């Protein structure tokens, strides 16, 4: 970095990141899968696929399906479970020298708390509480759409760990601000939004759903306008940092979230389309700052002009 380069570093709930670009949960595996295509050490942070207490097989196939400018997924939280994660996956992820945030998903408040405790280990820099995974019945969805439950869950996780707690919100709600307030008041250190919108697509020749799970989570550029709107609404309601995501494919999209009020951004589906997306976004943010004479990216957070 030359002296003239802008300062892209940000801090999310005490997690220092050299730039605001992170991977979205469930879209970068545990990092190693993308090593041939991307210098992961350049990222601001890495977020894991959802970690659950016990190992999970995941949903029946097909699990993914393309939709207009987006995709539906119903992976079903497939993961090796907390223990195996800590023993096998975590060390792998550490190698890249960037903060690792563990995305946790539980069936009950107790399970979330237990998970939070278990994952409060050397090498995990923060927890992202997935209260909004739309794919597993009676789970994530159940919490994320209710203010009280969101509050209780957040409080329980906060009490169970010393780590920064990031609550990841579901967009499938009437009033995202109410949920955001509930999480904030319960002690969340930051918020991630958005998770996927619940969607469905049908094979009309076979007269069957494309996904084995019938419904799935919609992600990708298609949902970006909804995600940006929610970040903008929430940013004006709460004063904890926001990690914005939903359809980011390029720096310009990341800037929409940042201007709307996000301190950091996460890239998900775009990784599948172009493995170098996160690097491109980082470079694009730097050149935008240069072009606009912005010395610190943080100057842009919430800098949207409304009259």
């Amino acid at each position: 970095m030359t002296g003239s380069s802008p300062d892209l570093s940000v801090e999310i709930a005490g997690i220092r990141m050299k730039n605001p670009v992170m991977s979205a949960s469930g879209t970068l595996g545990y990092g190693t899968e993308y090593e041939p295509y991307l210098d992961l050490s350049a990222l601001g942070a890495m977020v894991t696929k959802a970690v659950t207490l016990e190992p999970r097989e995941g949903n029946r196939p097909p699990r993914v399906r393309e939709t207009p400018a987006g995709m539906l997924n119903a992976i079903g939280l497939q993961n090796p479970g907390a223990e195996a994660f800590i023993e096998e996956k975590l060390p792998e992820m550490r190698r890249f020298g960037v903060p690792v945030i563990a995305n946790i998903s539980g069936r009950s408040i107790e399970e979330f708390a237990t998970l939070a405790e278990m994952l409060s280990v050397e090498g995990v820099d923060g927890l992202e509480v997935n209260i909004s995974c739309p794919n597993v019945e009676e789970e994530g969805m159940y919490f994320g759409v209710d203010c009280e439950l969101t509050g209780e869950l957040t409080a329980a996780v906060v009490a169970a760990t010393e780590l920064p707690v990031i609550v990841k919100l579901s967009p499938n709600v009437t009033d995202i601000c109410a949920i955001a307030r509930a999480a904030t008041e319960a002690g969340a250190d930051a918020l991630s939004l958005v998770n996927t919108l619940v969607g469905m697509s049908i094979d009309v020749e076979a007269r069957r759903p494309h996904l084995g799970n019938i419904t799935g989570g919609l992600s990708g550029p298609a949902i970006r306008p909804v995600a940006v709107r929610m970040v903008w609404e929430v940013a004006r309601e709460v004063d904890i940092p926001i990690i914005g995501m939903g359809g980011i494919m390029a720096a310009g999209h990341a800037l929409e979230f940042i201007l709307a009020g996000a301190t950091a951004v996460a890239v998900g589906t775009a990784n599948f389309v172009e493995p170098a997306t996160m690097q491109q976004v980082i470079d694009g943010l730097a050149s935008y700052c240069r072009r606009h004479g912005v010395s610190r990216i943080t100057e842009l957070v919430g800098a949207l002009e409304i009259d």
Partner: protein
Amino acid sequence: MARAVAILKRRENVAPGHYLLELSCPEIARSAEPGQFVHLRVGDGTDPLLRRPFSVMLTRPSAGEVQVLVRTVGRGTELIADHEVGTRYDLLGPLGHGWRLPEATENVMLVAGGVGVAPLIFLADHLRTAEPKPYVRAIFGGATEDALACWTEFASRCEEFTAVTEDGTAGETGMATDVLASEIERDRPDRVYACGPDAMLVVVAGICRQAEVAMQASMEQWMGCGVGACLGCAIPAAGGGYVRVCTEGPVFAAEEIDWERMTPR
């Protein structure tokens, strides 16, 4: 496993709805093994959004050339069918695990269904130069003659070749699986390599289990990342759980797959 740029050198409409792409792509030509695939981006926009997986059909390392056989079934493949010579493709590959090769002297049987012939042509080509050479028989089935794209490329690389169509428009009349059964009767192969529709693979697996013939199958599933990260391409694994077509596969030993749960709904 890396990323590469491929340039379309030639595009031939080898059969109705089937296009043979000749790509200039030295990296893939050099490193691709039979049964591996490339994850290709169609265009640079959002329509289509995700990459599309295609098996490597043949490579000419010296010429830095790769051949891919594409059947048009939807948006992405239809766009490919219209691409001009000179089109540049961004692709990831070679990806996945290919065919495990037979012991030299084996008597092997290749069973292809429709466009599933592509990875088997690559295998047959590879076996031609194996030393000492296995004896290679092949069965190529399809609904009609139109589905037997590139059959000469296939036939010319095998000692014995049987074409079969459901409507009898080419070769014998019937299913590839019927032919397989009688061929096993006649002269039991040591190993079967198969690629085609799930429905066909399920039957082939059944026949092979019965006849106690070792079998490998190249499987398909809709994909997200293609590199093992999204867990989107899962298929049922023997003994429960799932395996990833893009990483553990696309080629699997029959024993690795739960054919019960594979049976199309």
